[in-house]
């Protein structure tokens, strides 16, 4: 399993969850042993340091969930890296528009044509995404400047995963 960090916002407080392996994770740096029974069922069970929790998770909005634990509803927002970056860039760049380029499907990043700071035009090829033995050019939908490249060559990406951030000039 790949290491991954996730930022979860609950009542204004950030919980950084990092999955270290199949039985270890950290929340805001604190290490937890975990195991989870089938999370795909309506009622999911999770053991955190041996303590069982039962929960029903419902997706209420794209990045928002309602998590029912002990008959209390907890509103959860998933803060992905992209929205964090977009937020930080928006602060720097004021009114300038920030564009995100997302992976249209899961695949492998086979080539990257651009680098941070490059000026790009609309329709310019940014990178190549290989999936199901097909090569696909990922093009820019706008002119602007590359603010950040979020992926590297030979990296597998999931559908909807942000690839490049572009700031309109």
């Amino acid at each position, binding site marked *: 399993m790949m290491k991954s960090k996730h930022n979860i916002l*609950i*009542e204004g407080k950030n919980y950084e*969850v990092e999955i270290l392996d199949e039985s270890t994770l950290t929340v805001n740096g604190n290490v937890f042993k975990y195991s989870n029974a089938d999370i*795909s069922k309506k009622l999911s069970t999770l053991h955190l340091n041996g303590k069982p929790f039962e929960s029903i998770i419902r997706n209420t909005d794209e990045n928002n969930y309602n998590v029912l634990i002990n008959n209390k509803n907890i509103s959860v927002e998933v803060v992905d890296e992209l929205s964090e970056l977009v937020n930080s860039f928006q602060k720097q760049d004021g009114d300038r528009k920030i564009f995100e380029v997302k992976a249209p499907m899961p695949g492998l990043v086979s080539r990257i044509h651009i680098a941070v700071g490059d000026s790009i035009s609309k329709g310019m090829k940014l990178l190549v995404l290989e999936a199901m033995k*097909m090569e696909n050019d990922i093009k820019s939908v706008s002119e602007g400047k590359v603010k950040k490249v979020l992926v590297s060559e030979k990296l597998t990406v999931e559908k909807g995963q942000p690839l490049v951030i572009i700031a309109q000039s």
Partner: protein
Amino acid sequence: MTIKSKGDSIWFRLFHFKRILSPHFYHNSKEIVKRKIKKIVVANRGEIALRIMRTCREMGIQTVAVYSDVDRMLPFVRFSDKAFCIGAPQPKESYLDAEKIIDVAKKTNADAIHPGYGFLSENSSFAKLVEENGIIFIGPSSKAIETLGDKTKAKQLLRNSNVPTVPGTDEPITDIQQAKIIAKEISFPVLIKAAAGGGGKGMRIVEREEELEDAIRLCQSEALNSFKDSRVFIEKYLQNPRHIEIQILGDSYGNIIHLGERECSIQRRHQKIIEESPSPIVTEELRTRMGNAAVEVAKLANYSNAGTVEFLVDEKRNFYFLEVNTRLQVEHPVTELVTGIDLVREQIRVAEGEKLAFTQSDISLKGSAIECRIYAEDSANNFFPSTGAINYLHSPSGVGVREDKGIDEGNEISIYYDPMIAKLITYSDSRITSTKRMKRALSEYIIDGVQTNIQACLQIISQKDFFDGNLDTSFITKHFPNGFQNESSEEEKIAAAVFTVLFEKNNSTQNKIKPSNGTNSVWKKKRIGNFR
């Protein structure tokens, strides 16, 4: 007459004939006809309809459900032997439509109608209509309902009895000077109450004599505006009383007994949420006195079947008659558990013309039972009803737990009716164990889709004053002045964060698998076969 009424049937005549032969059927020269009930129309919905049908099935009695459009999928409809949709969800189109319900009873040849609680259960004209159609109304006579249903009439009935009523006037106030004398006599604080009032409207608490005149005038004009009836009464105001009620049971032969009390002081918005039997403050001596008073009320009204006499009890354990509920109560299960008596079964038996199976000396309260009403409501937001589909429902079980539930997973809590999901009742040999058992059982619930008051119930029964039995009707405002908070603990929030991450990971893994079906033609066209 197009539809044959019961009174014309051969069976009726046969019973009539038998009655003449058997002197056993006479009582004080009053005619009592015994009639076996074989089929009952349950004129109600939800948990109470199901609860009644369960006893019917045990007794070998067929049941007929009547239901509104939106209730088609509810458990009580499935449980019945026959079910009829009688109209739109608005109560007046269905559950309050007497004609439609009686029609179903005739159509199905039912012997009796059980009204449950709410809806038509305390409507004397409905009871009368049922009686007139030769159908047994499972409850008191229409006359008894009429007498006891009217608060003024009920109080008049008790004027020359030993039943204590809240000190005050029987006649409307016309003269301010007279009112001042009365108020001083019964001592402040007093309550000015509109004759036609209800739901807290047209009521005013007066602490001092100087405030009395203004209060009466204000109350009169408020009453005139709200109810087109300016009559107001003056009554002793009981500060934070307890609400304690006595279950009564009577037959058609004038036998009336009481089944002890229920403590119902924990209320929100004037609605009970937690009830128990016995009451932590009622001694055997007080039980006998209150019980006797309740039986006296019932006798004065020629009461038969099950009923409840409600009292207010002050800090000095003085009790005052409040009103009679001429029906089965929501909270009847706590009495069933401590007495071991199935109240619905007894209701049906006495409605058949049977004598009570017990005398007063047979009745004793054993152990302790507590009930929590589980509502779909937002306790953190002024108990606002929470409607929607029940997405997931797991009920508590185990030793000493009874759950009377009217809905299942997948059913809806609609806007049309009371948003009660279930009644959870725990029973044990002591109040302490029943309370602990209730905590345990409440924590077993998992209900998703609507907000519930489960956390609020847990918080209430965890109060020291609840444990000590220090209850009164202001309990919730006193202990939860800022309402209930459904705060999650840090541990729960961490779990929620981890759940979400695992859930998202799981979903994205599933998404990854989907395109492997190779159905996306756009990508197929771009296939670059010569590369490999």
